[in-house]
C-alpha cells in the first residue's frame, strides 16, 4: 500500500473534527485553545497535501501557493496563541477561573 493524497485528507479531516468537537465539548479555555491549534494544523496538513499532489502549474496555478498559505497560517496561529494565552491569564488574574463555564457574569 502506498500513502496517497486521500490518506492525508482523511487524517486532516479527522484532526479537524477532533479539534472542532473538543472545542465544542470541553469547557477548559486552555483546552479550547489547544483544540483551535489542532484545527489550524489540520488546515496546514490539508494545504500541504494538496500542494504536493497538485501537478506544478496545473490550470495556471501558482506553484507552492499552498505551502505559502501554510506558512502564513503558522505565523498567524503563533500570534493568535500568544494573544489567547494573554487573555486567559488576564481573566485568571481578575476572576481566578479558566473554565469557560465560570465566565458567566453576563448571562441574560
Amino acid at each position, binding site marked *: 500500500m502506498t500513502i496517497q493524497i486521500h490518506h492525508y485528507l482523511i487524517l486532516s479531516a479527522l484532526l479537524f473534527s477532533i479539534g472542532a468537537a473538543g472545542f465544542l465539548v470541553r469547557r477548559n479555555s486552555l483546552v479550547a485553545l489547544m483544540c483551535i491549534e489542532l484545527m*489550524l494544523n489540520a488546515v496546514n496538513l490539508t494545504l500541504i497535501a494538496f500542494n504536493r499532489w497538485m501537478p506544478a502549474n496545473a490550470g495556471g496555478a501558482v506553484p507552492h501557493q499552498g505551502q505559502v498559505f501554510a506558512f502564513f497560517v503558522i505565523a498567524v496561529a503563533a500570534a493568535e496563541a500568544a494573544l489567547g494565552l494573554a*487573555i486567559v491569564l488576564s481573566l485568571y488574574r481578575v476572576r481566578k477561573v479558566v473554565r469557560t463555564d465560570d465566565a458567566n457574569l453576563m448571562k441574560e
Partner: protein
Amino acid sequence: MKDLLLYLLPIVILTVGGFTMMLVDAFQKEEGGLSVPTAMLHFAAAAAALALWSRGGSADDLARAQIAFNGWLAFDRTTLFLDFVIALGGGLASLLAGSYLEEHRLERGEFYTLLTFASTGCMMLAGATDLIMVFIGLETLSLGVYALTGFRRTSARSQEGALKYFLLGSFAAALLLYGSALLYGMTGHTDLAGIREALSRPVDGAAIAGQEGAQQFVAIQQTVRDRVSILAMVMIVAGLAFKVGSVPFHMWVPDAYEGAPTPATAYMAVVVKAAAFGAMLRVLVGVFGDPSGSASLAGGWPGLLAWLAVLSMLVGNLIALAQSSVKRMLAYSSISHGGYILAAFVVTPRAEEMAGGGSIGQGAAAAVLFYLLAYTVSNIGAFGALIAAGRRGKEAVSYEDLAGLGKRHPAAALALSFFVLSLAGMPPTVGFFAKYNVIRSAVEAGYSWLALAVVINSAIGLYYYLRVMVKMYMTDPAPGAVRAEPMDSPGLTLTLIASAAMVLALGLMPQRFYDYALEAVKLSVAPVAAAPAAADAPAAAPSAPSAR
C-alpha cells in the same frame, strides 16, 4: 510602479502612523494624548481614499494595479468606498476613545495603536481578492479587536467578553481556513478570480484521456469537486457570518459588546462589520456568484444567506426587546442590522437590468455599501451619545440609568434620541433610506417575503428604540437610584455633531450617496455583484484578471 503604489496610500498611512505612535507612546513621559493624532491618521486615510476616488483611473489601470500586487488586493472603487467607511468609523471611534478613556482612567497608548492596526487589517480585508489575503486581513483586525475588547484589565466582564470573542472568533477563522484549503485543493488557486474560473470549467480529463476507465474517473472527480466546493462554501459563509455576528453565530456579540470599553464596542459594531461584509461581497459573489448560471453548484449560497438574514433579524430583535441594558440592546440591535444587510446580499447575484441603470444585483450590492456607511455614522453617534450620557461612577448603561435624563440634561438626551431614531429607520435620517434601499432591491428581485420580513422586523425594532426615548423623557428616576450624569468633553461633542451632520446629510441627499455606492459597485475589478449579461460599456465590471 510609483503610480501603482499610490493605490496603497490609505493602508500605508495607517501602517506607518501606527508604528510611529508605538514609538511615541514608548518614549513619551506621560500617558495619553494619542486620540487626536489617531483620528487625524484615520481622516488622512479617508481623504486619501477620496482623492484616489476622484483621481479616477480606468478599469484597466485598476486591473494593472491588481496584477502588480499579484492579485492579492483590488484597488477598485468598492475598496475605496469601504476604505472610506473604515477610516471614517475608526477616526470617529478614536475621538470617542479620547474622551471615554480619560474619563474612566483607562488612558493608555496601546488602545490607539491597536485600533490603528485593526483598521489596517480591515482595509486589507475589504480589498482582499485572494483567500490568503482574506485570512491575513481578518486576523490582523481580529487580533487588534480581541485586545481592545479586553482593554479594561481590572474588569471581569471585559476579560470575559474578550475570552468569548477570542475563542469563538478563532474557531470561526479555523472554519474559514479549512474552507479555503478545500477550495484550494479543488481548484489549485487561492485567488478569487482563479477559483471562480476553475469552478466554472468542468474537470479536465485531458491528461488521462484514452486510458481505461478515464471517463468514470473524470465523472467521480467532478462529483467530488462539486460536493467539496459546496462544503467549502458553507464553511466560508459560516466563518464570515461569525465575524459579522449573524444568527446562529452570534453568541459572542452581546458579551463582547457589553464587556468592551464603549468606544471599542462602537468600533467593533461599525468598522469590523464594514470590512467583514466587504469581504463577504467579494468572496461570495466573486467566487460563487455565478451570474451566468453555469456549472458551480455552490451558487446556492443566496438561499443559505436568506435564512441567516431572517434569523438574524428576528432573533436579534426579539432578544433586544428583553434587555435591560442599553449597551446590550444596541448589541442585539446590531445583530438585527446585520440581518437587514444580509437580506440585500441575497439579491446580489441577480443579473436582470433595473430601471435606473445597472442590474438588480448591482443595486443590491450598492444597498449593502450604502447601509454600511449609514450604519457607521448612526451607530458611532448612538454609542457616542451613550458615552456622553454618563461619567465615571455614574455611567449610563441600563434603561433605568437614563430615566429622566431628558429633563436633567436635554442635550445628551437629544443626541441619544436622534441617533436611536436613525437606527430605528425614521425619515429624514439616513437609517430610513438605508432600509428603503434594501427593501427596494429585495422587491425588485422578487423576494417580497424577504422585504416583508425587513418591514416587520423594523416595526419590532421600533419598540425598543422608542423605549429609550420614553425612559428619557417620560419617566422619573426611582428615588435613591444612581443617576447618570453626562460628561462634557470637546472631542466628544465634536464627534457627536459631526456624526449628526452626516446622518442628516445622508438622509437629505440619499440618492447622491446611493449613486456613489452604485458607482463603487460598477467600477469594481473583482465582481461584487452580478452585471447584466450584455455589458456594452467597458467600465461595467470587467471580469477580473487572474494573477498569472
